[in-house]
């Protein structure tokens, strides 16, 4: 094992001060970081363990009707919070479709935003990866890249962001609350993750030492509660990342779409907000023809980065299905298989 310093701050400001040292990494649930350290993919010199900071553990309703979720709230706790699941059902569904029950018990809200790509070349230290080692190249290009990006990729990096949770969050205008040496700032989740461009190693807008303290959902996000779904397609029913996923949320009034939110997962280096599709939907008839037009708009700029052209057509169909499901209405209870195309099949516990 490589030696590192371990620091457990008592306050957020202590944490931020400690992590300002170069080579620091925050430790929360550890579900991603510890694997990366064991695999030699990252080797922080200093671990700042924030997992016991009590003020990051709360879910609070704000005066303006919005919601503030502390960065250390566990994925499982958030998904199973009845008020949260009722107001933001697509987010709860996304959370429950991710990872395994054990991982969801450990993984945190902030850590989920910062999880690294599952690109196998990123994990394989014998391969070239600009994200892991800037300037080394991208072994995924021309390699085994069936699951790689179809939107927003560059020749420097074709990896995708693996989060389910972030997909409905970005659709619902979530905001990331960040604490740094200069104080607190707010960044929309849409702006939080960066596309790779020439600098894929810079995955987010976080400055060194900055800490995610909370994720906020604006009051308006709850207005989609009755028509919001997350759909995740993958070959294994549980404990697998999305091939492609989508979050769809609608406000429908007398057959017309009065509010529309759409985001895609598994398609780009960031959770992909499909604003052009939302523009197509707004004011349109709530029907399949509109959904197909929206899907075309969402994927208009897509292009395969390798053996993954099928993901473009798959994403179109997932968009149509997610919108169709959202239009049909949020299910009264969490489906047995959350986010699955087979979510209506009975007989399986939702944490299976």
């Amino acid at each position, binding site marked *: 094992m490589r030696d590192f310093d371990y620091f457990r701050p008592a306050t957020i400001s202590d944490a931020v001060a400690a992590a300002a040292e170069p080579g620091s990494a925050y430790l929360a649930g550890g579900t991603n970081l510890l694997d990366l350290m064991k695999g030699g993919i990252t080797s922080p010199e200093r671990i700042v363990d924030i997992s016991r900071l009590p003020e990051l553990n709360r879910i609070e309703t704000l005066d303006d009707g919005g919601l503030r979720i502390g960065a250390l709230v566990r994925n499982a706790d958030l998904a199973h919070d009845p008020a949260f699941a009722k107001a933001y059902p697509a987010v709860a569904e996304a959370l429950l479709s991710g990872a395994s029950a054990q991982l969801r018990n450990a993984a945190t809200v902030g850590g989920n935003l910062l999880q690294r790509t599952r690109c196998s070349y990123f994990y394989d230290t014998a*391969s070239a990866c600009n994200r892991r080692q800037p300037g080394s190249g991208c072994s995924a290009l021309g390699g085994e890249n069936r699951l790689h990006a179809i939107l927003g990729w560059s020749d420097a990096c074709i990896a995708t962001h693996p989060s389910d949770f972030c997909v409905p969050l970005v659709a619902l205008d979530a905001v990331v609350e960040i604490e740094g040496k200069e104080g607190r700032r707010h960044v929309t989740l849409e702006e939080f993750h960066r596309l790779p461009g020439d600098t894929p190693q810079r995955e987010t807008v976080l400055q060194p030492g900055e800490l995610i303290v909370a994720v906020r959902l604006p009051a308006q996000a709850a207005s989609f509660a009755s028509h919001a779904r997350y759909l995740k397609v993958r*070959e294994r029913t549980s404990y697998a990342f999305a091939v492609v996923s989508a979050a769809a949320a609608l406000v429908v009034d007398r057959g017309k779409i009065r509010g529309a939110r759409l985001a895609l997962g598994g398609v780009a280096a960031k959770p992909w907000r499909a604003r052009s599709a939302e523009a197509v939907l707004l004011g349109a008839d709530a029907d399949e023809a509109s959904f197909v037009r929206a899907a075309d708009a969402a994927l208009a700029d897509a292009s395969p980065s390798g053996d993954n052209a099928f993901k473009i057509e798959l994403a179109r169909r997932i968009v149509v*299905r997610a919108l169709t499901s959202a239009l049909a209405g949020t299910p009264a209870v969490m489906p047995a298989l959350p986010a699955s195309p087979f979510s209506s099949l009975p007989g399986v516990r939702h944490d299976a």
Partner: protein
Amino acid sequence: MTLELGLNQQPAHTRQGSSIGQPLTRRDGFLKVTGTARYAADNHPPGMLYAVLAVSSIARGRVVSLDIEAAKAHSGVVEVMTPLNRPALATDPDAKDHPFMFRLDLLQNDGVRYPNQSIAVVIAETLEAATEGAALLSPRYETEPARVGLDGAESFVPRGVGVGNPAVQQMGDVEAGLESARTRIEATYETPAQYHNAMEPHAIVAAWDGDRLSIDTPSQGLAMAQGRIAGLFGIAPQNVHIRSPFLGGGFGSKGMISGPQVLGILAAKLVGRPVKLVLRREQMFGPVGHRAPTRQTLRMGMDGEGRLTAISHHARTTSSTFDDFFEPAADASHTLYASPAIATSHDAVRLDTGTPLFMRAPGEATGSIALESAIDEAAHACGMDPLEFRLRNYAEVEPMTGKPFSSKALRECYEQAAEAFGWAGRPLEPRRMRDADGYLTGWGMGTATFPAIMFQAEARAVLRADGSGLMETGAQDMGQGAWTAFAQIAADGLGLDIDQIDFRAGSSDLPNAGIAGGSGHTATAGMAIHNAGAAVIARLADLATRNEASPLFGAGNEGVLARGGRLYRRDDESRGESYTEILARAGLAEIEGHGKGAPDPTSQEAYAKHAHGAVFAEVKVDPDLGQIRVTRLVGAFAAGRVINPRLVRSQYYGGMIWGVSFALHEEAVTDRRSGRIQNANLAEYHVPVNADVPSVEALLVHEDDPHVNALGIKGVGEIGITGTAGAVANAVWHATGVRPRRFPIRIEDLLG
């Protein structure tokens, strides 16, 4: 060794009569669910050091430098073993005396012949120090281009496939059969490389005492491992003591001792202290075997009644550049379907991979998914129901050899499984069934088969003056339930209740129980146990029937029965006496008997011996998104005598779920340029999770087989995979109209 039964374990159920046939729960279950079963890596002898492999990141070339100084300078590192200081071996690891002797990578030189090959071993006071030491070696290589994929090198016809079967076999005139056919099909299927991925990684704790070696390591074949290790180190086999009470799965990858396990022994020799070496998950993708990929082309001809006129089955497979194991995929076409002409052939390419090996149903699993898919295509081409087509081509004798079957209740399997599944009324055409939610629904079936194989085994039985019994054989429990099933056979063999016997297994100082593989362990070691029991009972009967003071006097050995710790006169069960009385009268503390299990060469020559089964699958497919869900599996299997129906059913379940895995999940993804496996972890190398297998049913079909062995056991370990994988593939076709031609089936294959 003796199973250390948990203190709270309830005694076995009170029963009448025999133990065989009872659905006993696992005798080792308590230990396992409480975490007290001691697996190899749980051992920590005093003074033990930790060894960690450094493995190659290239597929082909040589190591030109290792930073040994940096590794040794790391705190806690005791020694670095490389080709320069590796202790000498008595046998060249590249020598091969017989087909089961696989070449091992034991740091014999600086060459690299596959990714994840061992290139050094770092030995340290802690696992963490050894791990970091291995990372600090920072190897540099001279790299040559990797040979990857089924077309990655020039093909050739191997001398033999599987366990020495001819690579090319022919019966009848296939071309004439195809020529004369009314209907013909031809189809090519690809199966991927798969890795055994037992939950328990290969692990070893090795300790030397002079020229005596003590080892804790999982082994499916203790005596073979003992002999191989003794040969490598030039010591007597009895100087090697291996303990393997439990395996966390083996599936063939623990059948032969692997290179990394021997490196653990070498490391212990180098440092003169006990050493533990446990493979990391990614290190299991290379040196411990895999199922080779295949590309199989089947051609079939059918006459106007849907009878096969010819089957041609060709398989391309791969092996390593330095050793021979060739997946005998095409041989699956030898036994199942009657045809006047059958031709099977194999060719292969040599790639920069570890050597492939036996993996649960080697040849049968890969061959079955292609054969059962092709049979389904043939049935459809003839406009016939797949079950009707299979019955039309039912083999009354083994097609390739013309031998009668020792027993074959396949017809009953078809009937019972079809009935339980509700097969009747299935539309012939695909894409005709939708459920209420709009999912495409498909029903498919496959025939399961696996040969009834026996190896060689021995057992020793003892009856003691206190009326208790002892049965010893070095059997191996891989999770299949050997501790329980063999104790049941032993109890019946000794005429005792299972709680009155001490059953010892899982250790190399016990009689050789043969290999736990080829679905032959229960038959082979079971027969040794049965015969050892019979031998000791015969001695006991001898003592009684020759003694005038015994109520059994004059009955003759054939005239007595052993049951419940007593011998009875066969012709008058009111006359008998207890084992205790007989031994007390004879003044003996104990008596012993020995037994062997082995195939009977006469019946081997006369009969084709196979277990059979039929598997029916229902799948649902999302019509737009192509995601597949197996909603029901029903299998019926006939495999001779069932020793323990609970354990046997579990074996079928496990095999059937593996069949789902084969059809829909498992695949080692190899980088086409480097030859490195990109998903060498259990997050990305997918096997089914609970949510993938909502309903699995396994029916046990009664079958008496007087020819396989006296107990009538065939074997159940592998058959469940066969049939199932094809049934799932055929159900996917029936749901979608898309014929799966490569496995696992992917979403993009069904998007249309």
